[in-house]
């Protein structure tokens, strides 16, 4: 035993030796490197989030500004109704583009000739002529008068004014010709071409022209789809959770259901799209592209999330509450309906909101059931063709004009806004009603 004690003394000095100190410094360097790696990981995620959000907002906020030509339009009877008839059918087919052209030519006298006219009309949206037509149809008495009118600029002109099309590249690589560039500068200097705040991107329905496209139809479609999803997934999900948590016997059958639910929660969303396509569209013949089918598919996709969240909330209610209620003669169902469910409600609600938030952002399955169809009209019923915000984003992002980037980003801002509100409500509910037993 004496050599053991000696050994200890020898080793003890090892901890105060130079070598140990050097090794210790090296170990602390490794420690710092490890910590830096951790901080760097978190910083990477945070920076990416910031970059992503900044990209979206920087690209998207300009969509809320729209360029217009404030000009005086002569509602020339010759162009509108050469025959002089006031029949709406005649008025509807008048040459309103000519009115637009004349009004702009008044500002730009050099815009003549075929090329000049074409270059001029490229700066105005096709919507301008339709707007004039609608004015005439609503008030035929303006024919022959001069009116101050604000004409929607085309996407090219709009993007150029907003600075999204660079000036300093050669003309053949630029969407705006040198001539148009000079015109636009001139009109802007004269205060004819101005850019104003506008909510058209929210309130208009979809269009093939970026400057006219709005997301109102998609917003309504999303709301309708979510209502179907909510109406199906919440009652079924909560009922399933109640059964599995409160009543179901523990046997192989309920184990199977449980495993099945957990796996269903991890099935790729696009597979639900295939289910919707082959089951609901092809087999049951439900209306394609409709909010109804979209809602049903998303409900099936959200169901596992809601069941899992609801079961967790039910599980958190202590058994003593159930025993107390059973003890005064309530039936098991009464116990659940009167006591357990109300106590679990905040948890169920939180899970539901988070599940719906996921469904609201879901795109892939809806593509498969045809919700990508180009829909101009705002859907009026659940079986009308509809689209939803994320799908709208997907479709707009595919557009080749520069204006689509702006519109897409704006749509993303709106979608993220909805999601942030939903998540904020969920967080609030969790904080407000969180109970520790």
């Amino acid at each position, binding site marked *: 035993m004496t050599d053991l004690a000696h050994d200890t003394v020898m080793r003890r000095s090892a901890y105060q030796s130079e070598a140990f100190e050097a090794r210790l410094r090296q*170990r602390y360097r*490794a*420690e710092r490197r*490890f*910590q830096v790696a*951790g901080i*760097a*990981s*978190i910083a*990477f*995620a*945070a920076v990416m*989030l910031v970059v*992503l959000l900044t*990209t*979206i907002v920087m690209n998207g906020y300009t969509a809320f500004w729209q360029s217009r030509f404030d000009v005086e339009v002569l509602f020339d009877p010759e162009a509108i109704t050469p025959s002089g008839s006031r029949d709406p059918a005649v008025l509807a087919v008048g040459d309103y583009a000519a009115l637009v052209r004349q009004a702009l030519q008044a500002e730009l006298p050099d815009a003549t000739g075929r090329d000049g006219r074409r270059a001029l009309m490229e700066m105005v949206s096709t919507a301008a002529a339709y707007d004039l037509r609608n004015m005439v149809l609503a008030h035929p008495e303006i024919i022959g008068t001069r009116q101050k009118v604000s004409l929607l600029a085309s996407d090219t002109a709009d993007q150029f004014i907003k600075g999204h099309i660079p000036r300093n590249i050669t003309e053949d690589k630029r969407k705006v010709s040198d001539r148009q560039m000079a015109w636009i500068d001139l009109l802007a200097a004269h205060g004819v071409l101005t850019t104003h705040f506008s909510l058209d991107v929210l309130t208009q329905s979809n269009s093939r022209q970026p400057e006219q496209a709005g997301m109102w139809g998609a917003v309504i479609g999303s709301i309708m789809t979510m209502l179907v999803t909510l109406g199906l997934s919440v*009652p*079924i*999900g909560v009922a*399933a959770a109640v*059964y599995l948590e409160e*009543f179901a016997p523990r046997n192989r059958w309920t184990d199977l*259901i449980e*495993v*099945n639910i*957990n*796996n*269903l929660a*991890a099935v*790729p*969303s*696009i*597979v*639900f799209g*295939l*289910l919707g*396509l*082959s089951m609901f569209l*092809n*087999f049951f*013949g439900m209306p*394609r592209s409709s909010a109804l089918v979209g809602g049903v598919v998303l409900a099936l996709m959200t*169901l596992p999330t809601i069941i899992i969240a609801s079961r967790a909330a039910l599980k958190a209610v202590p058994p003593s509450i159930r025993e107390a209620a059973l003890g005064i003669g309530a*039936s*098991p*169902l009464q116990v659940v309906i009167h006591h357990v469910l109300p106590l679990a409600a905040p948890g169920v609600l939180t899970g539901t909101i988070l599940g719906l938030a*996921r469904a609201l*952002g879901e*795109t*892939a399955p809806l*593509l*498969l059931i*045809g919700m990508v169809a180009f829909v101009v009209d705002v859907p009026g019923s659940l079986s009308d063709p509809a689209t939803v915000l*994320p799908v709208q984003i*997907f479709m707009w*992002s595919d557009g080749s004009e520069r204006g689509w980037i702006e519109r*897409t980003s704006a749509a*993303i801002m709106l979608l993220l806004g909805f*999601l942030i509100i939903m*998540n904020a409500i969920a967080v609030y509910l969790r904080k407000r009603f969180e109970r520790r037993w």
Partner: protein
Amino acid sequence: MQTTLLLTVIAVLSVVGYLVGRNRAVAIAGGRLSTLHSVPPYHGFYVALWAGVPALILLAGWVSCEGPIIMSLVLGQLPAALIPQDAQALTLLQTDILNLAAGVSTGREPDPAVADAARLYNSFHTLAESCLLALGAALAVTGLILAKRQIRTELRARNRVEATLNVLLILCSLVAILTTVGIVLSLLFEAIQFFTKVPLTDFLFGLHWNPQTAFSGDVSGSFGAVPLFTGTLLITLIAMVVAVPVGLMAAVYMSEYAAPTVRAVVKPVLEILAGIPTVVYGFFAALTMAPAIRDLGNALGLDVSSQSALAAGVVMGIMIIPFVSSLSDDVINAVPQALRDGSYGLGATRSETIREIVLPAALPGIVGAVMLAVSRAIGETMIVAMAAGLAANLTANPFAAVTTVTVQIASTIRGDQEFNSPKTLSVFGLGLVLFVVTLILNVIALRVVHKYREKYD
């Protein structure tokens, strides 16, 4: 619209039934409610159930059978010469009739006989709807009256109502099973049709994916899915290279180092990252990441495609970071403090403790988490659809454009396909592969994680 009307009628009759049942029970009890076996509201529910449930069952059955029955009646009326022998053409004819009946333009002048058939279809349909309304309402009223007659003091209304509700609850919990069955059946059914046209081995091991050319002639050579599988794997691999180290280190830092204040800031950041829809990531990948990577690559003298696998993979990795970190966080927190104390007690630094003790102890759980993340990456659609493109290249070069299983599914199907072309059916073959692979990954991962949790409980 008759269906909506019937639903309203049923709802109203159920409410009426509830009131009738409750009042009847009160009347029978004659002021001494304690003589009733069940309290009056249960008698109300009892009558309401009798009024509603049978009618609803009728409605559901009717709606699901109506279409085929009417169609067979309509086809019976058509001149025999018009009815094609081959199943494919028959489906086409039926679709035409349905479209005409619904007033959807087919884009060509309809055959007069088909137009007649469509009119016939519509008249049958209207007739059927009226019948349904009448029958449904009658059934609801009958149920109501019969149930009301049964009300007596000793009626076990509560038990019967609860038994019914119990059945309802069981049905709801079966929806999840039915969904799985539905997925499996629909995938299998269509996939088998596909595999009768294209042999399974050609599909699984073929090296050329070119469904566009597969309209006629040799179809099997155009459906080799290997380029899709490799593309999916390549992008998944890139995503994992980004997500696993970053997510894991973030989780380690959060659970072992970060002060509560830091955690209070970082956790929401990761949650926001997790809550962003994939379509937004896709847009980000296409708009920002892909050009950035291309420019960077070109600056380094590399040939980078504008739709590179790298851009899609990196953005997908960013999307999966919060997924990996939150799962790993759970797993790391499940490692008992006693093990950390044991290591600290020997004079280990924090990082030594984490690397040598905590992470090895948490390894099974982390493996499970990574498998779930892989399954998530394989099934992800929008990012790859928007950033990776459609070129089915068989390559392992991350700078090249590749395509994935999910992109092919999403880009082929837009809800309005003819169901008989091999191109459409191929999607179900791909869907089946996707489903099976992710299912296997999930089952194993969930088991691993479950076992791991049990170990330290």
